[in-house]
C-alpha cells in the first residue's frame, strides 16, 4: 500500500468513540470530547506519535476512524481546523446551535 499522505502541521487527532459515537480528540494518553483540550502536534515526531496512538486505540476497540486534522491554533488555544468540514465537526450542526459540541462546551 502507498504511504498515506499526512496533512501539514500542526495537527490534532480526531476519532469517534466506539461505544457512544461522539467525536473525540486525543490528549496525552487518552481522549477528550472537548476540542479545546485537544493535543496539538507541532512537529513530525509528535504527529507520528498521535497517529500511532490512534492505530492502537482502534485495535483495542476504543475508537473508530481515527485520523489527523490540520489546524491553526487560534484565540485562547482553540485549535481551528483549516477545512470547513472539520470546523463543522468541531461545532455541531450549523442549523441547530443547541446541539453538538457548540452547545456542550458553549463556544
Amino acid at each position, binding site marked *: 500500500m502507498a504511504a498515506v499522505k499526512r496533512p501539514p502541521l500542526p495537527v490534532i487527532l480526531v476519532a*469517534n468513540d466506539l*461505544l*457512544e459515537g461522539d467525536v473525540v480528540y486525543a490528549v496525552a494518553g487518552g481522549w477528550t470530547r472537548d476540542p479545546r483540550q485537544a493535543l496539538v502536534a507541532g512537529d513530525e515526531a509528535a504527529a507520528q506519535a498521535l497517529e500511532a496512538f490512534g492505530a492502537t486505540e*482502534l485495535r483495542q476497540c476504543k475508537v*473508530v476512524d481515527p485520523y489527523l486534522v490540520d489546524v491553526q491554533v487560534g484565540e485562547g488555544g482553540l485549535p481551528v481546523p483549516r477545512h470547513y*468540514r472539520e470546523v463543522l*465537526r468541531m461545532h455541531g450542526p*450549523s*442549523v441547530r446551535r443547541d446541539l453538538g459540541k457548540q452547545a456542550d462546551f458553549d463556544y
Partner: protein
Amino acid sequence: MYRYDEFDERLVRERVAQFASQVERRLSGALTEEEFRPLRLKNGLYLQLHAYMLRIAVPYGTLHARQLRQLAHIADVYDRGYGHFTTRQNLQFNWPKLKDVPAILGLLADVEMHCIQTSGNCIRNVTADHFSGVAHDEFEDPRPIAELLRQWSSLHPEFEWLGRKFKIAVTGATQDRAVLKSHDVGVRIVRDPATQQVGYQILIGGGLGRTPMVGKVLREFLPREKLLSYLEAVLRVYNLEGRRDNKYKARIKILVHEIGIDAIRAKVEEEFAAIDSPRNDVDPQEFARIAAFFAPPAYESLPDVSRKLEQAQAADAELARFVEHNLFRHKQRGYTALTISLKPIGQAPGDATSHQMRVIADLAEKYSFDEARVTHMQNIVLPHVRLDDVPEIFAVLRAEGLGTPNVGLVTDILACPGLDYCALATARSIPVAQALAEHFADPAKQKEIGDFSIKISGCINACGHHHIGNIGILGLEKKGAESYQITIGGDPGENYALGELLGPGLPAELVPEAIDRVVAVYLSQREPGESFIEAYRRLGLAPFKAAFKEIADAVA
C-alpha cells in the same frame, strides 16, 4: 395496514438479539471494524459527522399512531427529541449511542418496526406511492406487493452481500409518484391488454448518484404469480455479473448500461426459466392474506362536496390556501388525502419533533383510520380524511407549526441532511433550503410561481434527488469552500427527465438570487396555464442560462 403474525414477530425479535450479539462481539474484538461495519449498516446504523445515526424502516411509508408515538418516545429517551423523515420514506435519528441501539430495536419491535436493510449492500426498504390505496388515478393498491417484497427481501440469504445497494419502488397508479425510473427495479401494476390479466411492468437500471441513469423496461408484462421468482432471477444476475472492481460502478444501472438492456433481459430470462416452478410462484393464498390487511377502511357514504369546509374556507384565507395546496383527490367521495408539510419556512426539511409526531399520531387516530404515510418528498400524509374534518385538523396543525400550505410549491424543498450531519457530504444542504424558503416565503409569490420543485443534495450521491428537481442544487467543494451547482429541467414523474447544468457553481449566498432570476424568466415568458417545467420544455435551456449567467459572472 399489515400486522405481524407470530412468525414476522419472532423473526424481528431474533434479529434484535442477533444485532445485540454483533455489538458484543465487536466490543470483545471477535469482529473487526471491517466485519462489523457492514453488519451495523445492514441494521441501519451509520457513523456520521457528529455521532451514530440510526435509520428506521417505514415500509412503503405506512405508519399507525402507536408506531409514531413509539418513535416520539425513542426520540425523547435515546435521541434529542426529533427525527428526520428521508427521501426514501424512512426515519433517521441523528444522535443514538451504539450501546443503546439494541434497546431501541427492542422498542421498535414492540410496535412491529425494525431497521433491517435500511443500509448496506443489500435490498433496501421497498418504497411506494404515498397515496397508495387512496389515489383517484390508481389501478390497484401496490402495498400488498410492497409487503410481499419486504418479506421476500428480508434477510434473503443469497442477497445480503451484493456489489452495492438495491432499491425497489412500486406503484399502481397512472401518475408515477414513486419515482420508479430512478430505482434499481421499478414495479408498476398493469393489465395485459391481450388477456386483461393483472400483472406487472418491470423497470430496471434507474438511479441517481454520480452516474444518473433512467430506468428501462425489462419486461412489459409479468404474470402476478411470477413476481418473486422473476426478481430472484434479476437479483441473481446482478449479484453474479455486476461489477465488483469499483464501488462507483457496482450498481445494476452500470451493468445495464455496459451490456445493454437486451443482453440483461436475455440473462434474466435464462435464469428465470431455471428458477420458474410452481414451488417458487407467489402463493395466491398468501397474497390474499396480505392483501386483506390493505382492504379499504369503513368509509362513510358522504356527498362529493363538504358545505362545512366551503364555509370555513370562505372565512379563513389561510385554510383556503391549505385546501388548495395540501389536499389530494381521494377515490372515496367526501374524503381527501391531506398532506402535512414538514417544510415550514426556515425549518430543516423533513424534521419533526417528538411533540409533532405525537400530534400527528393523535390526528391520524382521530381522523384518518389510524394511518399516516411518509412521502419521499419528506412530508406526512393523512390518507383518509373526511372533507368535513379538514377545518378542525387544520386548526390543530396551524397551532403546532404544521399548517404550512406549500405542498408542491417552490418552498416544498426536498433536501438531504448534508454536511450538517452527514459524513459523506461535501457541502451543507439545509441552510440553502432554509435561505430559499425564506426568499420565496410570500404566499402570493409562491402561488404566482405555482408547481415548482427544488431538490438539494449535499454530495454527488444525490440523496436529495437533485437531478430530478425542476431546479436541482448540488453542493460540492470548490477551492476549499462550499459551492453549489444548479441544474434545471429535472422531472421525477411521467415525463421523467434529468436536469441540465445552468452554469458554474455559486457560493451559497448567491443561490436564492440565481433561482430568482430563473423564476423571473418563467414568469415573464410563460403562456397562460403553463407550469414552470412545461415552459422550460418549450423555451429550452438558453433563456434561463442567460439569466443565470448574469449572477454567475458577478462571482467570476
